């Protein structure tokens, strides 16, 4: 039995002729401790997919099972790191993490909870900014708080929704290294949503492309067999990296191509994909 399983999941928005099917027949299974990256173009329904797994959205068809039990709503067993951080601006860094810890570990003593909060703030290197408020932090620091908050809930699975998408390249690459380190020490199952192929290769055990929506489906698995710890600098000379990267790129471009052609000729033919 897979740790997390999506069976024929479909999701759309709107009704009648306005209806747009975002995801169609998604099948995916994830093993415990696996680092999975879902790679897709913007607008392909990546956020919808992660919202379904987190339980913030319910699928129209199909079901999602965590440890064999269907997901009925959101819960702290699935820690979500949103692209826009979703920190509460009136709370300090500490307060934001404490809100989660106090709720999930309400049976523990105050000292235990405090230790837990500080442990994860140290893990993301934020011990110095504990009493700052989100607006005083840079984008990278905010995302660290968000990661600390998600980890501190001790979730079974960590869902990262383009967590580094809004960051500059330098911050991005240092956070990538940290996420990988945290994953190795915490041994959590991670689902990473990204549009950055190098990020996916650097972090993931397996990459699944999300074909462009509407009616997005998942592509074939690409296993990443580059040994860890991985180093971006050696990628350029690594043959297996080049092969993998080319394979994924080719797949993504091919899957996109008919659509491009289709869009170009759409006006002449009238109907394109119905």
């Amino acid at each position, binding site marked *: 039995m897979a740790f997390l399983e999506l069976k024929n999941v479909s999701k759309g928005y709107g009704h009648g002729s306005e209806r747009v099917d975002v995801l169609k027949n998604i099948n995916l299974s994830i093993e415990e401790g696996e680092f999975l990256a879902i790679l897709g173009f913007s607008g392909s329904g990546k956020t919808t997919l992660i919202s379904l797994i987190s339980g913030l959205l319910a699928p129209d068809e199909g079901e999602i099972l965590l440890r064999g039990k269907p997901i009925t709503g*959101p*819960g702290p067993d699935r820690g979500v790191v949103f692209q826009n951080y*979703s920190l*509460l601006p009136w709370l300090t860094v500490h307060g934001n993490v404490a*809100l989660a810890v106090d*709720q*999930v570990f309400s049976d523990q003593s105050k000292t235990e909870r405090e230790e837990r909060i500080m442990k994860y703030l140290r893990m993301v290197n934020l011990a110095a900014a504990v009493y700052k408020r989100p607006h005083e932090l840079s984008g990278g620091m905010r995302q660290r708080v968000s990661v600390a908050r998600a980890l501190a809930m001790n979730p079974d699975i960590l869902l990262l929704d383009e967590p580094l998408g809004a960051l500059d390249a330098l911050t991005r690459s240092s956070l990538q290294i940290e996420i990988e380190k945290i994953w190795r020490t915490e041994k959590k199952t991670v689902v990473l949503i990204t549009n950055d192929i190098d990020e996916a290769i650097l972090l993931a055990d397996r990459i699944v492309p999300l074909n462009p929506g509407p009616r997005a489906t998942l592509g074939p698995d690409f296993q990443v067999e580059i040994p860890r710890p991985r180093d971006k600098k050696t990628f350029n000379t690594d043959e297996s990296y080049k092969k993998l990267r080319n394979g994924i790129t080719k797949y993504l471009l091919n899957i996109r191509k008919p659509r491009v052609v289709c869009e170009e000729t759409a006006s002449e033919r009238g109907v394109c994909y119905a």
Partner: protein
Amino acid sequence: MKNKLIRVLSIAGFGWFTPVIRLATGEDANEQIREILLRIGVPVMTFAIFLLVWNGAAAGIETNLGRVPGPAQVLEQVRSLAHEYKEERRKEVEFYKIQAEKNAAKLAANPSEPAKNRKFTGKPTYLDQIFTSLRTVFTGFLIASVIAVPLGILCGLSRTLSMALTPLIQIFKPVSPVAWLPIVTMIVSSIYVVPREWLPKSYIISSVTVSLCCLWPSLINTSLGVASIDKDYLNVARVLKLGFFNKIFKIVIPSSLPYIFAGLRISLGVGWIVLIASEMLSQNPGLGKFVWDEFQNGSSQSLARIMVAVFTIGIIGFILDRVMVTLHSLVSYTPETH
């Protein structure tokens, strides 16, 4: 240190004073002087022009109560009211002194006779009237807030409730206090039959009338604030599975506090406007009654005294508003929002 002071001043509503500090600490003199002229010089000038125009216009209008008072006459009445206040305080001190002496004498003559302690009952001074008004408006404002904020939160959370209450809110919102007052008077008189000394009927009637009028801005703003909470914050509550009250107190209220305080600010302003009218009609011994009594009194100083009340009402209203602005900026969680 300097920046902290400037920040505190800005939040407290003394932002106009900051260029003086900047100038004193040697920042670019030209720019600061321009700022001082704009933020202090221009308002002072306008006020001076206003006084001149007032003075000129007032001299030309003759009423049944004599000539319309100019700034000088009004200032004279300010002094006279201050004098009356001091006079009453002196009488009070004297009264207690004499009472204490009498009691001491009685006690010496006959130790078994209990001492009589009466309270001083002088006529209310202008300052007493101001405090009565403030007490009344805050009572009304408090009643209104206790109802409006929780109800607004529920309205913001539930579209059904919001739709249900919208017609009532829209109908009652524009109603003047003068229309409410007779109804409130009748209801309070029939329920509160035996008034206690510390809680006069007129005080309840004015407070309730004030709350009926200043309920609406808080209610509408709170409901708007709660309805427009960032969905991400609510998602945090959902992921954490916060219970209803946890969600209200940890997510909903903190995130809508700026809206709530904006509403409370408008409410207090409305309450203060409405108070004067309702005090006039309900004979609650505050500023409204002062104005009414002076009008009925009709002496040659009456108009000038009413003018004093006008300025008092205006200045207190301004201070109340500043206090609310300060509170508002204290609860706003990002420096950008004001």
